[in-house]
């Protein structure tokens, strides 16, 4: 058994899996075929449904992955061979040459400025050009340039200009054998290439673009700097059409639904509209599949607030006006009218395809692919490719970012489960010399000014800045370096600290966002506390942006150095404290989510308490009689329950509810209704949800009107009804429940197919608003249609009406697709009523975690923290979070295991050094700070009547500090005195 894990694919899935694993005691090898990690998310402008800036939310993960000392990046690399068995694989990785020495390259970018070669920029979706030596984007990790040898003319300019001597033309492919215990495949997806769909003229008509191209066009860092213009003439388009299902739900390309396009098209249209309020945006679609958490509300807002036009039609072809390059769409609306309409631009909502490399990955790793070329997985094992090899993200099918991230954590849990006994055996801890005590010493400041090759020195007069720095109070040493970040300079800095007894170090160079940790580590090696360091940015925010005014740039650099030195005088050594962790978990809710999470934690070697309010386990899964793909849920449930009961780490508390929770991450104490007290380090909320009980359609009044779950139960015993009508979206997507319950369309299809099997003569109607059989579920929708199930679409304005006439049921329906009225005489009416949350308010208050407007639990971040709460140490899975399928619930439940392991795998958790603190002599207990904190890190000490900071929970934003009216609160490293010193040093005196 080997305590390391390989992750293949460095997109958001691969990064999340790597971070979870590395944070819970495993060495990680993260392999990406590209020169840098980041994947598709790095190309996105914003993310739905919150319209978060994609790079803003992803960059911290990029940096964390790149910096993590237990994550080893193998970029520009492909896997060529795998041998061994679970627990001990040997993987052969071939690193393609990048012709730049990654150790030496500082990422300064000078080479690219001088490179005379132009090449198509794939990152910008071929809309711009890049150089022959390049990185994809400025935030790239690792920030190491690569030479495109296909384009390179070998002129040698880069070699001459690179002062770090990093160019190595003669690199050859290198092979590395990596020994790992388990493997995670997160290879992502490719976009459908619309060239094959000649009818849309992509490639011929300049103003027909793919959605990813449009994403780049929208992006402030994109080809047009965020100005939404069309490629043919740079004009602002007034009319944009989005064509859905290009390369999805299509006999001729991909039959499956790509699951994300309805939302991303809506998002892109909204952003475009924000850029140009006069824009007329039309989305041509078949079914609007806005099924995820918050998606339906987003769709509604798109119409009501942004005025997007949604037209239900599949556009067959596009013509272009050769003069104007405008695009002519001819389409048939549902009522049969043929309409011709002109647009300035067309965006093709291209689907998601398996990466071309999947076949190869499949044969190298010996994992099965399904008919579409994605991983073939099973409903109860959604994350497993085969023993020891797991999968997440779009590798196993199209999915959005939150589902991907939940799966990534889930796959991390499964992979580490294989080698949980090896936890901590291969991780490296850096050993530093003992810290010097400089608290009582007067400041002795050393200032290092960087040339960054000629990036700074070519504009800013570095010797002059250095000379100036030497005149500042308490500065006892100054130096200038060609590259302050290079290895030899680190030695020089250490030497200077020792020789000149420096107790503060200031570096004036590039951005602290990437380089501060390096220098902090250097001075720590020299015995100084890493927080006796201050950095100022005279490159990105000075020499690079004032290239034409070198004197002004020099003056600004001096000012910035003076401000940094002023602050450094007041710097204090910071220590993180640590608190002991109760290395066990509490799982609330004994359904499939809770059971999976509990067993997962137990298998990782931690004790778990599972609390269930009923006298039995199983939750809602007990009511699921069969799956659409033919598995037996009850058999699975019995097996799972047995494994739980057999596991020595699991204690099951049935007929128990949580009455009181005290404490915080690492140290919770929960009191159950039985009076029992449980100490635990983390908590998983898996309280589930329930089938909504309707009040309409004679439900409860007539026994022939039932819900889908009731019908499922009936089906398990045999149904004789001849005419069955199912009505979808009952009390969903309306005023009763604004959200879409995600599962009902597929449940209806499943039950319809089951009925068809039992009773081939039955007439089955499904009355729906949009069929939301997303991803591979589309195949069952196809199958149901083939099986003669009648699908009839209704609009919310013309809802079906059910009446009872002389004991028989009469259903009046208006088929909106055909614009015809029907009168049906069902024997049975089955209502798809959706999922409702339980009343979660008490639990929400006890654990201090929020609910969303619909009453489900609200995650820390819709996109990137789907199973976390803002409050550390509390996680969620399953229907407690939002309606979802069994496989999604299982993925999430495993996701909580990995997230929990990042805490319970540690004996102690360290606090952040930069956090808030309270001067107890000044705090009057006014409690203004308490509502400031989104992490519940502010608590009133009832006895002392002052508010304290929970150092474990505080993330160090400083919100409470600014709000504290008497300055009893201070933020370490950003104290008032420290910030004021910079403000006071702002003007040269």
């Amino acid at each position, binding site marked *: 058994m080997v305590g390391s894990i390989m992750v293949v694919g460095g997109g958001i899935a691969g990064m999340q899996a790597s971070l979870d694993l590395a944070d819970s005691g495993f060495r990680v090898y993260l392999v990406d075929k590209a020169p840098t990690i980041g994947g598709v998310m790095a190309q996105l402008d914003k993310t739905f449904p919150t319209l978060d800036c994609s790079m803003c939310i992803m960059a911290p993960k990029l940096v964390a992955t790149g910096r993590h000392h237990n994550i080893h990046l193998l970029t520009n690399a492909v896997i060529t061979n795998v041998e061994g068995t679970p627990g001990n694989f040997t993987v052969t990785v071939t690193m393609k040459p990048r012709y730049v020495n990654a150790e030496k390259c500082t990422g300064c970018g000078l080479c690219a400025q001088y490179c005379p070669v132009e090449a198509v920029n794939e990152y910008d979706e071929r809309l711009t050009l890049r150089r022959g030596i390049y990185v994809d984007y400025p935030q790239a990790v690792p920030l190491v340039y690569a030479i495109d040898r296909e384009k390179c003319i070998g002129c040698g300019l880069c070699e001459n200009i690179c002062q770090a001597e990093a160019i190595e033309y003669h690199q050859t492919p290198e092979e590395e054998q990596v020994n790992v215990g388990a493997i995670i495949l997160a290879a992502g997806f490719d976009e459908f290439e619309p060239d094959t769909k000649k009818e849309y003229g992509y490639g011929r008509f300049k103003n027909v673009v793919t959605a990813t191209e449009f994403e780049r066009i929208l992006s402030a860092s994109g080809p047009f700097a965020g100005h939404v213009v069309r490629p043919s003439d740079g004009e602002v388009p007034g009319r944009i059409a989005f064509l859905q299902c290009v390369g999805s739900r299509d006999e001729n390309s991909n039959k499956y639904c790509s699951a994300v396009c309805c939302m991303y098209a809506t998002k892109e249209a909204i952003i475009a509209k924000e850029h140009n309020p006069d824009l007329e945006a039309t989305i041509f679609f078949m079914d609007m599949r806005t099924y995820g958490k918050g998606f339906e509300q987003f769709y509604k807002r798109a119409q009501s607030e942004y005025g997007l036009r949604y037209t239900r039609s599949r556009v067959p072809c596009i013509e272009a006006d050769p003069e104007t390059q405008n695009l002519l769409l001819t389409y048939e609306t549902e009522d049969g009218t043929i309409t011709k309409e002109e647009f300035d631009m067309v965006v093709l909502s291209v689907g998601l395809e398996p990466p071309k490399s999947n076949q190869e990955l499949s044969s190298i790793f010996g994992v099965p692919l399904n008919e579409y070329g994605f991983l073939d997985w099973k409903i109860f094992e959604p994350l497993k490719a085969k023993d020891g090899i797991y999968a997440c993200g779009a590798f196993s099918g199209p999915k959005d970012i939150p589902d991907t991230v939940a799966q990534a954590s889930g796959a991390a849990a499964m992979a580490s489960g294989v080698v949980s006994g090896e936890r901590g055996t291969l991780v490296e801890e850096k050993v530093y010399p003992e810290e010097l005590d400089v608290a009582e010493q007067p400041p002795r400041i050393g200032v290092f000014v960087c040339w960054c090759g000629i990036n700074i020195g070519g504009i800013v007069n570095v010797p002059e800045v250095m000379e100036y720095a030497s005149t500042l109070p308490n500065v006892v040493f100054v130096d200038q370096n060609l590259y302050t970040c290079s290895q030899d300079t680190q030695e020089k800095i250490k030497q200077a600290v020792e020789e000149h007894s420096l107790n503060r170090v200031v570096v004036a160079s590039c951005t602290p966002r990437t380089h501060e940790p390096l220098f902090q580590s250097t001075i720590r090696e020299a015995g100084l506390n890493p927080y006796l360091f201050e950095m100022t940015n005279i490159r990105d925010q000075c020499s690079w942006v004032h290239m034409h005014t070198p004197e002004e740039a020099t003056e600004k650099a001096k000012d910035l150095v003076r401000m940094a030195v002023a602050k450094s005088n007041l710097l204090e050594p910071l220590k993180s404290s640590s608190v002991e962790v109760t290395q066990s978990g509490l799982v609330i809710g004994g359904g499939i989510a809770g059971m999976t999470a509990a067993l997962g934690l137990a298998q990782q070697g931690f004790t778990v308490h599972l609390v269930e309010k009923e006298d039995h386990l199983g939750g809602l899964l007990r009511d699921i009689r069969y799956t659409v793909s033919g598995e037996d849920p009850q058999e699975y449930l019995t097996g799972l329950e047995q494994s739980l009961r057999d596991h020595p780490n699991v204690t099951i508390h049935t007929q128990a509810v949580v009455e009181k929770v005290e404490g915080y991450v690492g140290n919770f104490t929960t009191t159950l209704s039985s009076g029992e007290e449980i100490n635990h380090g983390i908590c998983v909320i898996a309280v589930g949800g329930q089938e909504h009980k309707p009040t309409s359609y004679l439900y409860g009044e007539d026994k022939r009107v039932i819900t889908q779950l009731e019908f499922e139960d009936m089906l398990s015993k045999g149904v004789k009804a001849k005419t069955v009508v199912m009505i979808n979206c009952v009390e969903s997507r309306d005023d009763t429940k604004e959200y879409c319950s995600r599962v009902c369309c597929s449940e209806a299809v499943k039950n319809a197919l089951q009925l068809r099997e039992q009773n081939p003569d039955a007439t089955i109607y499904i009355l729906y608003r949009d069929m939301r059989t997303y991803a591979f579920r589309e195949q069952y929708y196809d199958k149901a249609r083939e099986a003669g199930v009648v699908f009839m679409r209704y609009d919310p304005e013309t809802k079906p009406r059910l009446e009872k006439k002389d004991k028989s049921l009469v259903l009046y329906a208006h088929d909106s697709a055909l614009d015809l009225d029907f009168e049906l005489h069902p024997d049975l009416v089955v209502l798809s009523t959706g999922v409702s949350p339980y009343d979660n308010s008490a639990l929400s208050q006890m654990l201090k975690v929020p609910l969303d407007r619909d009453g489900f639990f609200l995650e820390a971040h819709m996109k990137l923290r789907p199973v976390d709460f803002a409050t550390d140490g509390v996680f969620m899975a399953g229907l407690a979070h939002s309606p979802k399928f069994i496989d999604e619930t299982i993925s999430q439940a495993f996701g909580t295991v990995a997230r929990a392991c990042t805490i319970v795998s540690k004996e102690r958790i360290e606090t952040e050094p930069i956090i808030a603190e309270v001067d107890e002599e*000044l705090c009057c*207990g006014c*409690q203004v700070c308490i509502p400031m904190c989104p992490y519940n890190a502010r608590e009133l000490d009832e006895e002392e009547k002052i508010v304290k900071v929970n150092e474990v929970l505080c993330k160090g934003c400083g919100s409470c500090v600014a709000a504290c009216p008497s300055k009893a609160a201070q933020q370490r490293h950003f104290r008032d005195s420290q910030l004021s010193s910079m403000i006071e040093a702002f003007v040269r005196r």
Partner: protein
Amino acid sequence: MDKLKFAFYWAASCGGCEIAVLDIDEKILNVVEKADIVFWPVALDTKYKDVEAFQDKYIDVCFFNGAIRTSEHEEMAHLLRAKSKTLVAFGACACFGGIPGLANVSDRDEIFDLVYRELPSVSNPDKTTPQLTYTAPEGELTLPQFFDTVKALHQVCDVDYFLPGCPPTPEMIEQAVTAIFEGTLPSKGSTLAPEKALCEECPLEIQEKKIPFIKRPYQVTPDGKRCLLEQGVICMGINTRAGCGARCIKANMPCRGCMGPTPEVADQGAKLVSAIASILGVEGEERMTEKEIEALIAQIKDPLGTFYRYTLPISLLRRKVIKK
């Protein structure tokens, strides 16, 4: 032991501080027993020239109340500083500029125009305003200069102790005098009041510091139990020094800040802006539009006058910009 020599002076003040001295009631007898009052314009007929005649440091303790509004106040501040061993800034006006300090939103010309020319009750056909000198038949008369800017005492001379309040409470005065007699005064420059803010001694109950709206005191009927700020009334107790016994609060009125800011605060108004804007509308803040935020913040009437009620002259900006 020789009796100590006390002096009292009033600059730009309302006279309340003088009354406050008497408010210590019969304890004044203890004071008189141990100290002689050598200068007290409100009660004794001592002339400035008498003070000038004192030897330097003749006075043991001078209690100086009122802000520096005119050149006379400033001259007297310098004079009394020279003649006193210990100079105490007595009351909010001397400590921070106080209510007269609010005049720093205006200047001499504006004030003179208003007071001597524009007010409806004024009859001044020649539009005369006070001049520094006037030659009368009897000779030249002089008036003190009326400054543009009101100052606190320590902004014109060195101050040993600060005894804040509008006026300082009898208990605080008594404590200060006792400390003087017993020689237990803290280090020079200290404020003779607690370091914590008023919430420390406020009897009202704090539930949750989230306020959905701001109300003027007359718009609410305080329930007498819950924190006034939490009821939407701007109460400055959150960063105003304790020591007053929360007298206003006990009368169902919010703290207006007369004890001045807590020690670390450099600018009481700015800190109140920070605190109150932070908690105002915090519930549901993520759903609030820009317009709604503006409307909510607009519920705070006259932020400058409210948040710097007693401390404008010692604030970072000190006064409104005079456009000349």
